[in-house]
């Protein structure tokens, strides 16, 4: 399997960080970078990462199955994660979640018809001090309100148009 030169460079960088015999440590970051390129984890990708990291495809499969950030189904161009765990919940995370699903008309791990935005309800994004929190790709948006969330979604939608 071939990746774009940028992704390939990232994969090589992370892979070369681990000594021989311990390449399996690179499985998760490599899958993340590879997923960023295609929006999903494919069987081909699993086989490729397994080969490079000297593990069996099944062992990569285990990792993919375990981590919710790795998706086998195709996600949107913007993957929006809304935290509804305890801190965010207290600060209105659930309202944010309901608002987003209503506005986009999609649910947990679903993608809008145009493939632009996918939604995920996550258990703690690790930003409790700035709750409630919404994550767009790798970008954190703190102290979220419904207005700020709408602005974020507007900007995503407008960027494309």
């Amino acid at each position: 399997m071939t990746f774009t030169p940028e992704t390939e460079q990232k994969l090589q960088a992370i892979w070369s960080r681990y000594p021989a015999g311990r390449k399996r440590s690179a499985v998760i970051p490599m899958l993340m970078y590879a997923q960023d390129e295609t929006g999903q984890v494919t069987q081909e990708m699993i086989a490729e990462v397994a080969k490079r990291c000297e593990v069996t495809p099944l062992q990569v499969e285990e990792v993919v199955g375990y981590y919710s950030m790795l998706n086998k189904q195709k996600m949107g161009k913007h993957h929006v994660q809304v935290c509804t765990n305890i801190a965010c919940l207290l600060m209105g995370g659930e309202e944010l979640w309901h608002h987003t699903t209503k506005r986009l008309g999609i649910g947990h791990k679903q993608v809008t018809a145009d493939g632009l935005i996918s939604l995920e309800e996550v258990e703690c994004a690790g930003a409790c001090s700035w709750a409630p929190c919404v994550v767009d790709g790798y970008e954190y948006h703190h102290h979220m309100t419904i207005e700020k969330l709408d602005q974020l979604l507007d900007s995503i939608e407008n960027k494309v148009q």
Partner: protein
Amino acid sequence: MSTSTAAPPTVVNFTVDGRQLSAPPGTLLIDACKRAGIEIPAFCYYEGYSLQAACRMCLVEVEKMPKLQTACTLPVMEGMIVRSETEQIHKARKGTLEFLLTNHPLDCPVCDKGGECELQDMVFRYGAGESRFTEIKNHEPERQWSPVVFYDPARCILCYRCVRACNEGMGVGALGVTNRGVVSEIAPNMVDHLDCDECGACIDICPVGALTSNTYRYKTRPWEMQHVGTVCTHCSNGCKTTLGVRNDEIVRGNNRDRSGINGEFLCVKGRYGFDVSTNEERVTSPMIRINGKLEAVSWSKALGFVAEKFRSVSTAGGSFGVVAGPHLTNEELFYLQKFTRAGLKTSNLDHARSGDLVTLLDALSGKTDALATSDDCYNTKAALVIGSDLSQQHPFLAFQLRADVRHHKANIYTVTPGPVREAKYSAQSIEVPVGGEFDALRNLTETLKGEQELVILFGDSIKGQRVRDLVEWASGLGIPVKYVCLVDYSNSRGAMDMGVMPNLLPGYEVDPHPGMSLGQMLSHETLDVLWVVGANPLRGKTLASKQAFVVTQTMFLEETSERADVVFPSASAYEKNGTVTNVTGQVQRLKAAVRTMGAKTDLEICGLLAKELGLAVEIGVWSHDVVFKEIHKSVRGYNVPLPILITGGAAATNPVNGRVAVDVRIEDIQSAGDTLFTSGELGRYSKLLTSVPEFPGALYKR
């Protein structure tokens, strides 16, 4: 800093439930307790495999430790005070069980595991009969992963035993765990099916009924079977298999009682290869060729007919050739060679030879303790495999080596003509074409000189002079070396020990009147009688003698029987009593598990023929006990301790230590090259072995 350091303690003293115990340092608490007869329950912990601490059943109280501790990961320490059964522990275990039962179906009345289920036992003991959960149980339909393995996710308690058994024990790694939390489940390596050894180790090791076997599922309950401990009849490793027999039918094979040399290890043949005995193609009646067609006749008619022919050929001074199979018992082989030599007055006697043990014994003359047993393969500090795809051709020996690497950090070296599984954990693996082995060995010499000891396992590419060269090379290493001469089938070793060879009597005594080898018999143009007992020498070969009267004793009408004039139906090894000797020279007892209508054991057929020929007094009684007594008394190396044999153990035979001065025809020595899924003549008739997608497999490919 002080220069003198105290020697590390060799024993650790601790207290469990008020009892003073001691164990070597590093011993896990759960093991130490088990040895003292204190049972600590566990699902995920399994002796010999890596630690998981996933099930939380083995929690115990340890003084000065604030929380309950998992006994399966806690090494014993000096002065440790442990309590294994208190109210708190009871409550914790009951809670664990309540969690396990949130999604576990209560289908015990139909579950295969019912009656021997570890979860059932624990619930019975701790009484988590009621649940506080009101949610509906998660249910997933069961799946078939291979012709052998079924998985029922709902029953799975995620102990990871199967994953570790497959990965560490078998070296396959076909099982994993996918997803997380309440939806996690065991996953096969090919998404929805398995590509593996099909050994079924995962099924046996499952503490519940999540993994079930196609041959056994929904057929019977464990308490309705008789359990017959016998020896697997396929390859030469001699694994003990405990057959579950119900209504004269073998319904399963496993070795959960860990009797025998192999502990719980079995490969696909040992667990499922028993179906040869129920193949409907089996010969069930003696047959005589009448007008070119084999027709069923009575035993007395067939025996009389053969005896008449033998007698007339004998009187006329004609030639006999006798071929024995490598699956016969020692008793049958001994009786047959006696029949041939004393009764038919010839040494035209042979079997399909698959390893050059004879030259090895000769080359080792004067060296003591130079033959390795299967235990040595587990305990040795280094092993060298030459010319064998060990994990396919000798799965148990390969399992021993894998365990040796895991438990003793042994160094494994391989010199093979292609890729082998051992390469994954070996210290060094060299691929060389057949013939180039010694170049590779010379490269290894310096490395091996640094080892403390070595077990060399070699296949059929090392024969004749090359065996002597190997012994000479190994002597130059300056370390203790033991050898295993790899042979093919369940009693290939016994056939040699019992003198089923044209130039050697039982116990490797030189025959003063050597006869024809198998190859010579087949190409002999005026051979008068070819008597084939449990073998198929005409597969892919022709019999030069057109006039030969061919008698076979067989389970199936194979190529040789198609040429036969008389066919006797013989019993399979699952229907016999007697002994067999494995590749490492350990003799073990076969125990008849079932009876098959029409067939007789080869010993009985030979005995009846002897009686018909008036030779019964001379050759002796055809009872396996009586013949074994004679073997025990007269065959060199077989003076083994009887209590070991009688209790189902493996007694190491002690073969001759001295010259075996005969010419070995190396062209007669050729391994059949069976893979993990083939088993010579027997494997052809096992429907299960031929049904797995991996069949027939190939050596040096996986």
